[in-house]
């Protein structure tokens, strides 16, 4: 039992938040906290012959390598078939090249290599972890490259994956937290591609055909739409060879087109869904910001104080520490290609839901009106910049962060300037950014629980 954050909930949040928290990881603070910290790992980048962007950090300490290939092929590219990106990505290792599903599984397991796939709204990410001993790496790499470029999409496996996706969708229905999140995204984003759940919907999963998957693969899982991130025990020529190998069989293709802008809600909206649970799950928010947003640092540091840093943040203090209303309470931005969500949330016993909701609203309104105190700002900066070294202490983390930076086209000096930009944020900047960007009179409120009326 983790005490502070519920790790299960937190994990879901942290996955999204990774993008928010991560950047701090690379920064070298100027203050004594990080004096003597050597953060200068070599972040190198180039482009493969067929157009994939590559980022690489050598990490010679352990005889292993982490590779992460990220495509602009998340659920925002689903089109009329919600879940298409996710099912397509999940199908790649069900058959590829000359190998069937079992053989692919054995090719990785035989050599202790780990293959993984995750799809979010913006991206589909494929990861591989392997030992770097030549023979082993060769087998891992060959299998990985074949999966990405030459999936065979066998029919039988497709039917099974679809059926099991339907089971996952059913599983979500028994979770008030997941129901709340789906409702929140649906009502916040309306017609925008961010509105639908990554996992898809029952109708669309049933309607999907193999041809849809093949077309999706052909269009989006292509070199010009990819970033390859490598962290491991190798030098630049080895990394170059590896990146070429991984991408060699991919079609060059084209980058995905720009996503439509997100339209802000023009009025407040509330959605209540009845559910036989002991707690009501509450989400309140609106459209937030994008990656590389001009207000990014003001909103990021501000949110840290509002509800982004766990204990010590205003939401946690008000909801949990002062009143004991909830185990977990938080706020976060999901910076994406275009404006992602800004969400405040908590779970509390049904009979306390309305009280907790008004407290959340109060905390937000006050924060927007007054901005942070000088002391809060100072603490936030110390925490963000001082925590830097912790965030680069594993290859697994580093590979995710460099892939993200390249994927969103953040400037290459982004890491070097990150702490300075955090330090440069003033209380007035935060107040100004929150006043311009967050509108407490136009919030979407979603509740799922027993205390609520039916939708």
């Amino acid at each position, binding site marked *: *039992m*983790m*005490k*502070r954050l*519920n790790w*299960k909930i937190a994990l879901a949040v942290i996955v999204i938040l990774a993008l928010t928290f991560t950047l701090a990881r690379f920064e070298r603070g100027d203050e004594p906290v990080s*004096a*003597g910290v*050597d953060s200068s790992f070599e972040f190198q980048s180039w482009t493969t012959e067929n157009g994939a962007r590559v980022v690489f950090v050598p990490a010679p*300490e*352990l*005889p292993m390598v982490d590779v992460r290939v990220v495509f602009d092929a998340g659920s925002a590219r689903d089109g009329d078939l919600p879940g298409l990106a996710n099912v397509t990505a999940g199908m790649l290792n069900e058959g590829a090249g000359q190998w069937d599903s*079992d053989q692919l*599984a054995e090719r*990785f*397991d*035989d*050599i*202790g290599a*780990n*293959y993984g796939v995750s799809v979010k709204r913006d991206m589909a990410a494929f990861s591989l*972890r392997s*030992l770097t001993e030549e*023979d*082993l790496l060769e*087998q891992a790499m060959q299998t990985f490259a074949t999966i990405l470029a030459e999936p065979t999409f066998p029919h039988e496996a497709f039917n*099974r994956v679809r*059926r*099991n996706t339907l*089971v996952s969708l059913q599983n979500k*229905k*028994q979770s*008030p937290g997941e129901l709340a999140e789906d409702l929140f995204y649906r009502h916040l984003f309306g017609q925008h591609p961010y509105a639908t759940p990554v996992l898809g919907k029952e109708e669309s999963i049933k309607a999907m055909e193999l041809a849809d998957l093949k077309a999706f693969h052909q269009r989006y899982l292509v070199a010009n739409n990819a970033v390859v991130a490598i962290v491991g025990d190798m030098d630049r020529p080895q990394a170059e060879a590896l990146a070429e190998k991984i991408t060699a069989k991919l079609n060059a293709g084209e980058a995905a087109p720009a996503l439509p802008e997100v339209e802000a809600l023009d009025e407040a909206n509330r959605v209540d869904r009845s559910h*036989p*649970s*002991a*707690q009501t799950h509450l989400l309140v928010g609106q459209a937030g910001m994008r990656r590389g947003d001009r207000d990014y640092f003001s909103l990021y540091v501000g949110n840290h104080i509002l509800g982004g840093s*766990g*204990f010590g943040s205003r939401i946690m203090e008000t909801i*949990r*520490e*002062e*009143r*004991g*209303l909830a*185990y977990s309470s938080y706020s976060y931005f999901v910076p994406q290609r275009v404006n992602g969500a800004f969400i405040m949330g908590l*779970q509390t*016993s049904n009979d306390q839901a309305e009280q907790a909701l008004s407290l959340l609203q109060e905390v937000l309104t006050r924060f927007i009106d007054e901005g942070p105190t000088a002391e809060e700002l100072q*603490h936030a900066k*110390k*925490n963000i910049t001082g*925590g*830097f*070294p*912790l965030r680069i*202490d*594993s*290859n697994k983390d580093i590979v995710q962060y460099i892939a993200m930076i390249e994927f969103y086209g953040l400037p290459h000096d982004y890491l070097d300037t990150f702490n300075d930009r955090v330090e440069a944020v003033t209380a007035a900047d935060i107040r100004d950014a929150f006043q311009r960007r967050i509108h407490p009179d136009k919030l979407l409120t979603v509740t799922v629980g*027993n205390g609520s009326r*039916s939708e």
Partner: protein
Amino acid sequence: MRRLLILLGLGLFCLPALGQVHEYNLDNGMKLLVREDHRAPVVVSQIWYKIGASYEHNGITGVSHVLEHMMFKGTEKHGPGEFSRIIAENGGRENAFTSKDFTAYFQQLEKSRLAISFELEADRMRNLTLPEDEFKKERQVVMEERKLRTEDNPRALAYEKFNAAAFMVSPYRHPTIGWMNDLKNLTVEDLQQWYHQWYAPNNATLVVVGDVEPDAVYRLAREHFGRLPRVDVPPIKPRVEPPQKGERRVVVQEPAELPYLLIGYHVPVLKTVEQEWEAYALEVMAGILSSGRSARLPARLVRGQQIAAGADAGYDLYSRQDNLFMLSGTPARGHDIAELEQALLEEIEALKNEPVGQAELARIKAQVVAGDVYEKDSVFYQAMQMGILETVGLGWQTMEVYREKINAVTPQQIQQVARKYLRQDNRSVTILDPLPLDGQQPAGSPTATGH
């Protein structure tokens, strides 16, 4: 096989950045384990107390976990919330966790900040104030946590009832978070007693991994923890589970969408087993069933027969007391619990009747060897492994021999443990039988909260 040989060879060379474990004992009985890892200028510090839910008895279940929460509510020197504030201001992360066999606290910091963590942990090891008003709020928070984790999660509820049925006497029958009714009736006096009885230097292990110099860590530990008094820690009663005589079946009816199946067999663990190899054979057997996508349950039940949407096997080698060898799963669409159960039991029979193939076994061993390298990517995990082993009384050295012991397991040994332990009369089965979810219950009726 050649690949396996390469793999086996690989593990033999010393990883340059990682040092040996250094063990120290303070005069008051506290143990310190330090391991150098100079890859990043950070340090993780963890305190492990030999206390957890399996030390509790009826009426006070959940006390270890609630006390863990209260450890952040202040000492005479540092008021409520101060601990977290100081760590945050130093750019650190901190948290804590409670399990059946231990309660642990950790900080991750830039390396020069280790003294801050030691000062704060040493202070709260003996000087907690446990204010009544903070306790009442925190008890509320824990009850909300229980609702979130268990009451509103059908699978977690089924698992809780499964455990309580599989164990009649063993303290493993209690949920770590505690029964709701016990939480409601917990008092601050219960916590005080628990705290004074168990939070002592001689009942704790301090584990430090990171960019540090072991002797310097030792000096620092002596300075901060060395002056804390030793406490008489009471011996605990064994509460050993009597042999099971016949299968137990429990049906859990809860509002849910999906059925869920749990099967468990009483088995020894490394700490309790008479012949050590049996525990390692059980570990490999769990791997054969569900380690990796090529393992039997995903390959045969999810992909092959397509009876399961998901299926898992699990075994906790490092428990303090006898535990369960577990199987669990959700049926695929168009299949029911009975078919899934039948399929899982056939896999068990196969383990008894046919020796595991060499290629399968080699695959598991390859994963273990590679896993050994991968695990070193995380300083936190390294510290955690040492902490668990030391706390359950196996000693950190156990992790050093893990690979060797796994490699020694033979197909015949797996067959032997399968026959010896995976018997029907030693089996507990729990089925989650879903009740309708969609608003059928009249408002205010006891649904998931009916404890």
